[in-house]
């Protein structure tokens, strides 16, 4: 009885405190020191309690590059990056986003992962838009691990690759005809004419069908296909821009295979890709993804093995998406074993594209 | 001829007047904890009430699921339930009805009725009984609630692999079934041990087996059948869970397993299960009919024979469920023959009841109506049972609604109707008011008519082609009318149950004293005036219907003129009698209320359920806490002898017993029978796979070296020697307890090492459980042995600690003796395992 009374009193007191308006919520005022310490203490312990204990190999160049490219477009505005300070606007947030180069060493890999994935309440840190794409989140963590040691030049190399970012003249800057940071540039990850992607974790778009490229971008934009990296970028594109991009990449000649898959057997992959595995209810991949398949489907020849594996795994493991292509592929991917994914990825990575108009005879 | 006055003074064991505070002290000792502390109670009257309430709750829940199914099937192509929901619901309906309602309900009736009926104060292991109940309740509720989270199993209550293997049933639904049900089976076994020892060892003096009420006979056979039937399904669930969790391919044909192995194990349990449910219900009928007809049961001896014969024959029927699997004709013939044989005992019972009704004059009460309804429905179900035992007929009827109709006639007719009869019949003994005859009759009419409208048309639906377990059906095959009728009937049954619930709310006033009393003028001891301590004194029994034979018995018992009218040791106690003749042997002190068993139940449930959702660390912690709770509860169960005590009539009984006289020794023997049955099921599985998968047998698989089994056998021999020596040293004229402890530790270590050597030898030979069904079974031997060794080690440490603190010695040795029994068993099982996994493959067959 006494206990109930005590709890009741506590609740009443808290209610009165809030109702009186005594507490100042102004961001301009900051927290009392003790409140700040208490919130920080609570936040750190909450993260520690929930973070996963294991992580993939984070010294992976492909992973770091992908993370860097995303960081540049997605994170630097608030957190700053080597060579550029965060926006003065975000510096007046409460709490203000920290400079990550100083802070990342305080956290374990798993804790960083958790923070990137789930964000922080009341701190302006958003959650990852695609909660079923852990593979992407790890790339950001991999990059963050490199961040403390990066200077501006190395950062640009990693994040912008070889994409020339020329601000142009004053007119271009004044009329916003150029984007000085090249934030939205597809080529930073996917490459362009004659130059493949910087990381084996993204697809080679060169020479894919226009239909498929445009559909993929629309699916990302609508959230029907899940990716924390692609969704925000695609959502910012106008329909005409999507058409133009699709036309551009569809017209580029496909690249020659240059992947050297470390896992998986090309021979086994070939068997699976050409004949399927009827006992495991797996159809032959090339019926749809071969050179004479419907333009609604992607051509897989020459794609990096790691990208293919990651996509198949995402389809298999995640709730995935809601797009019609997802509806077709997800149930098939769900029947593949890890080994089969590795094999079939290795096979396609080793294949040369045939029959594309953009290819020289 | 003696006069009444002489009899008052001379013949009865205890003279009047009784000492003034005797009754008060007795009541204080047996007092039920008040308020919310009632959760710590262990009195059979309290636990029995809870138990029946919980079982009835699951009956209602599973009944609601049945109604959902009937709504879905009311019309063809219905969209009320989707396919996955329907599949989960029919799986849960069957599972809950069989495992969470039927078996617990009859076990509950046993817990509630047996001590009073047998003239005992309580069951012999009150905390074990309470543990079994709480484990069942917690586990059952969590299991049922999986339905609300879309995590319920959907593989059917029979869970046939490969459908329930990880390939075709990913997700945790099947794991919930396997771990949850496996756990509830363990609870049922704990209850069965309690019931066997209770029936055999705590009967009132003079109540020899031939004077025992039929209900007690049925509960005895029920419990013995559980001991032999449940281990088969426990092994099966264990193997399927090992397959799902660790990829041991017992049931995967491509990898040397066999899909039918599951069916053999499951139905070796599943068919006796039907009789496990039916026999106690028939026992209730055998109690109700004589009372309502006011005449002793006609054919008592024939009924006992029928019960025993059913207990045996029902184990020869399991392939009866596998007539369409394509096994050889002659096997089908054997099982068909056994199916015929089992119908004879049921016939004997039916005609005995009819003869009894004819011998007296049946009063038409609500209880009698439910009994008559039972006779009608059960007879019809029995006749369709003979039909499906005819192999060619079964080829058509199997897995159709004909079978659904058949077993609902047998189970609802054979178990639910008697249970309702029992509710109306026994309510006055446990409630301040009887239930309403008027509402009871209304409930009966609704349930009886509703039942036949619901289930008779299913015979027809099955014969015109409707298979079982379909969530929808097309129009135009003639199935519409019977299905609609079934749905209407199902709701009539539900209405009947609602009327019954209304009756409960209006009239049931649970009590352990001051009950409505012997309103039916029945003849058996549960109708004596009862209180928290059961009857005031324990009568001497000279006939099957003692209250009819001796009109003064009730009053004399209540005055305390029979045995043990108070408490002689200041603790809860009951008289332990010999198994056959019920001669008083000693007075056992029983445990009272406590929390350890309740916590043990909760944490055991948590262990299994957390394991299901793969929270292994949390599960292990809960498992350790559960073991700690069991140890805590066991710590004060082995009270030292309080010397000989006087129970009246010049009988002085000891208060401590060791060896075969000890009731605890009996419990241990039964537990060993359970373990033995589990191991025999394993041996069957091993040999079965040998017959059906000759292509996977060694020498194809790597065979362990000779060194392995020789080392293991040598270690077992050392352990056996230590066992013998430690037993001798504790009873030596000059006991050296340190020596006993040392020998025990050495013995346990060598037992453990023996197991390790065996498993290691297979492992070093390159065999892995994932290789094949054969390999998985080889390692299963080690797995089963590890369970026994773990139990022996825990008991051994427990015994050693007690020896060291002076609580256990050569005279006060029950704890040590029990450990020795299981240790001996473990040695035997280990040796058999060596013969099987090392010797058998070398026979070159």
């Amino acid at each position: 009885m006494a206990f109930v009374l005590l709890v009741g009193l506590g609740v009443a007191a808290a209610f009165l405190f809030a109702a009186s308006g005594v507490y100042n919520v102004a961001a301009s005022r900051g927290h009392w020191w003790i409140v700040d310490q208490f919130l920080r203490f609570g936040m750190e312990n909450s993260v520690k309690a929930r973070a996963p204990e294991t992580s993939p190999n984070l010294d992976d160049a492909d992973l770091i590059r992908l993370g860097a490219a995303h960081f540049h477009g997605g994170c630097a505005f608030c957190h700053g990056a080597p060579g550029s300070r965060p926006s003065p606007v975000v510096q007046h947030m409460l709490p203000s986003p920290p400079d990550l180069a100083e802070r990342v060493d305080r956290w374990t890999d798993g804790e960083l992962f958790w923070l990137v994935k789930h964000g922080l309440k009341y701190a302006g840190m958003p959650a990852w838009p695609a909660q079923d794409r852990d593979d992407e989140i790890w790339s950001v963590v991999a990059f963050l691990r490199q961040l403390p040691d990066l200077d501006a030049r190395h950062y640009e190399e990693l994040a912008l690759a070889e994409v020339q970012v020329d601000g142009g003249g004053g007119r271009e800057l004044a009329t916003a005809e150029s984007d000085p940071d090249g934030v939205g540039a597809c080529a930073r990850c996917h490459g362009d004419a004659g130059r493949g992607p910087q990381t084996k974790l993204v697809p080679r778009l060169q020479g894919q069908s226009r239909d498929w490229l445009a559909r993929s971008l629309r699916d990302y934009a609508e959230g029907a296909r899940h990716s924390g990296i692609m969704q925000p970028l695609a959502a910012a594109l106008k329909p005409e821009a999507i058409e133009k991009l699709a036309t551009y990449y569809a017209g580029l000649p496909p690249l020659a295979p240059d992947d050297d898959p470390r896992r998986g057997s090309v021979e086994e992959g070939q068997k699976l890709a050409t004949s399927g595995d009827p006992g495991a209810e797996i159809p032959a991949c090339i019926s749809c993804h071969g050179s004479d398949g419907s333009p609604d489907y992607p051509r897989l020849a020459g794609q990096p093995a790691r990208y293919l594996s990651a996509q198949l795994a995402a389809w298999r493991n995640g709730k995935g998406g809601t797009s019609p292509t997802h509806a077709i592929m997800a149930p098939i991917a769900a029947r593949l074993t890890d080994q089969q994914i590795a094999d079939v990825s290795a096979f396609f990575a080793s294949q040369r594209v045939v029959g594309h108009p953009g290819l020289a005879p | 001829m003696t006069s009444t006055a002489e009899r008052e003074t001379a013949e009865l064991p205890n003279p009047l007047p009784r000492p003034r505070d005797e009754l008060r002290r007795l009541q204080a000792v047996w007092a039920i904890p008040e308020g919310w502390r009632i959760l710590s109670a262990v009195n059979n009257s309290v636990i029995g009430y809870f138990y029946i309430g919980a079982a009835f709750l699951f009956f209602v829940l599973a009944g609601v699921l049945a109604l959902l199914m009937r709504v879905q099937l009311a019309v063809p192509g219905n969209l009320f339930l989707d396919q996955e929901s329907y599949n989960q619901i029919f799986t849960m309906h069957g599972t809950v009805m069989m495992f969470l309602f039927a078996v617990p309900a009859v076990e509950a009736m046993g817990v509630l009725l047996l001590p009073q009926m047998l003239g005992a104060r309580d069951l012999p292991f009150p905390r074990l009984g309470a543990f079994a109940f709480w484990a069942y309740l917690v586990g059952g509720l969590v299991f049922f609630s999986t339905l609300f989270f879309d995590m319920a199993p959907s593989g059917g209550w029979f869970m046939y692999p490969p459908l329930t293997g990880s390939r075709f049933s990913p997700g945790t639904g099947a794991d919930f079934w396997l771990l949850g049900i496996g756990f509830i089976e363990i609870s049922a076994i704990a209850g069965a041990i309690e019931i066997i020892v209770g029936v055999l060892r705590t009967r009132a003096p003079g109540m020899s087996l031939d004077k025992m009420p039929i209900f007690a006979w049925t509960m005895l056979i029920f419990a013995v059948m559980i001991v032999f039937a449940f281990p088969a399904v426990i092994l099966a669930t264990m193997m399927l869970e090992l397959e799902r969790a660790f990829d041991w391919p017992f049931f995967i044909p491509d990898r040397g397993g066999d899909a039918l192995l599951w069916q053999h194990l499951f139905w070796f349990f599943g068919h006796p299960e039907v009789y496990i449910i039916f026999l106690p219900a028939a026992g209730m009928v055998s109690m109700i009919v004589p009372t309502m007809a006011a005449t002793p049961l006609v054919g008592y001896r024939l009924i006992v024979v029928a019960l025993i014969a059913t207990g045996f024959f029902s184990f020869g029927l399991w392939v009866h469920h596998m007539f369409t699997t394509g096994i050889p004709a002659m096997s089908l013939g054997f099982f068909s023959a056994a199916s015929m044989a089992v119908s004879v005992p049921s016939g004997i019972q039916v005609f005995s009841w009819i003869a009894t009704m004819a011998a007296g004059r049946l009063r038409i009460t609500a209880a009698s109506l439910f009994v008559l309804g039972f006779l009608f429905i059960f007879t019809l179900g029995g006749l369709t049972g003979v039909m499906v035992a005819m192999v060619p007929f079964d080829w058509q009827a199997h897995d159709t609604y004909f079978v659904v109709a058949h077993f609902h006639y047998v189970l609802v007719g054979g178990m639910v109707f008697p249970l309702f009869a029992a509710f109306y019949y026994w309510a006055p003994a446990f409630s301040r008011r009887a239930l309403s005859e008027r509402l009871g009759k209304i409930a009966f009419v609704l349930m009886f008519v509703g039942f036949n409208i619901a289930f008779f048309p299913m015979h027809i639906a099955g014969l015109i082609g409707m298979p079982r377990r379909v969530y929808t059906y097309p129009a135009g095959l003639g199935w519409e009318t019977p299905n609609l009728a079934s749905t209407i009937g199902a709701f009539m049954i539900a209405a009947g149950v609602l009327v019954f619930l209304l009756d409960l709310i209006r009239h049931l006033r649970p009590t352990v004293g001051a009950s409505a009393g012997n309103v039916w003028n029945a003849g058996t001891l549960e109708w004596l005036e009862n209180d928290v301590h059961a009857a005031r004194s324990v009568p001497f029994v000279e006939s099957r219907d003692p209250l009819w034979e001796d009109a003064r018995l009730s009053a004399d018992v209540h005055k305390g003129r029979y045995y043990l009218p108070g408490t002689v040791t200041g603790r809860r106690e009951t008289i332990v009698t010999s198994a056959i003749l019920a001669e008083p042997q000693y007075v056992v002190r029983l445990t009272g209320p406590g929390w350890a068993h309740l916590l043990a139940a909760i944490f055991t449930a948590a262990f299994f359920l957390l394991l299901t959702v793969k929270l292994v660390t949390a599960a292990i912690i809960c498992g350790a806490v559960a073991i700690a709770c069991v140890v805590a509860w066991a710590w004060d169960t082995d009270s030292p002898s309080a010397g000989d005590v006087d129970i009246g009539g010049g009988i002085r009984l000891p208060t401590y017993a060791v060896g075969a006289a000890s009731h605890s020794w009996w419990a241990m023997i039964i537990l060993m029978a359970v373990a033995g049955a589990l191991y025999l099921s394993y041996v069957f599985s091993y040999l079965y796979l040998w017959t059906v998968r000759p292509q996977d047998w060694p020498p194809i698989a790597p065979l362990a070296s000779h060194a392995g089994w020789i080392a293991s056998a040598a270690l077992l021999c050392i352990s056996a020697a230590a066992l013998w020596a430690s037993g001798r040293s504790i009873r030596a004229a000059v006991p050296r307890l340190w020596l006993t402890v040392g020998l025990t530790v050495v013995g346990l270590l060598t037992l453990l090492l023996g197991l390790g050597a065996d498993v290691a030898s297979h492992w070093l030979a390159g065999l892995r459980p994932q290789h094949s069904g054969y390999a998985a079974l080889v390692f299963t031997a080690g797995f089963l042995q590890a369970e026994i060794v773990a139990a022996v080690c825990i008991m051994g440490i427990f015994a050693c600690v007690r020896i060291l603190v002076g609580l256990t010695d050569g005279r006060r040795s029950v704890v040590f003796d029990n450990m020795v029994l299981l240790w001996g068993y473990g040695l035997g099982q280990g040796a058999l395992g060596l013969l099987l996994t090392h010797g058998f493959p070398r026979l070159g067959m």
Partner: protein
Amino acid sequence: MRSVGTLGIGLWLAGPIIWATHFIIVYASESVACTRLDADSHSLIAGIATIIALASIAFIAVRSRAGRFRDTAFLRTTALTMNLLAFLAVTWAGIAAVLLPSCTGVG
């Protein structure tokens, strides 16, 4: 009623126990014979097992009228009836063994 001891209980249940043993032998021997030996050997095993089982039940039934259970009507009549039921059950299983060929599917 009088106490009969463990052996007495065993004898009392002899009929059903013999039935169970016979059942295991004929069923298991068919499984083994059909996969590891040959069909003819099973017919022989089943036939011999049935004859032995029936003879033992009959022998025990006759003995129980005069032996251990002589003084106790309950044990005597119940043992006799159980023997009768077991005899019938073994006979029925025997009929199946005689009428049906071993190791043959029925499809």
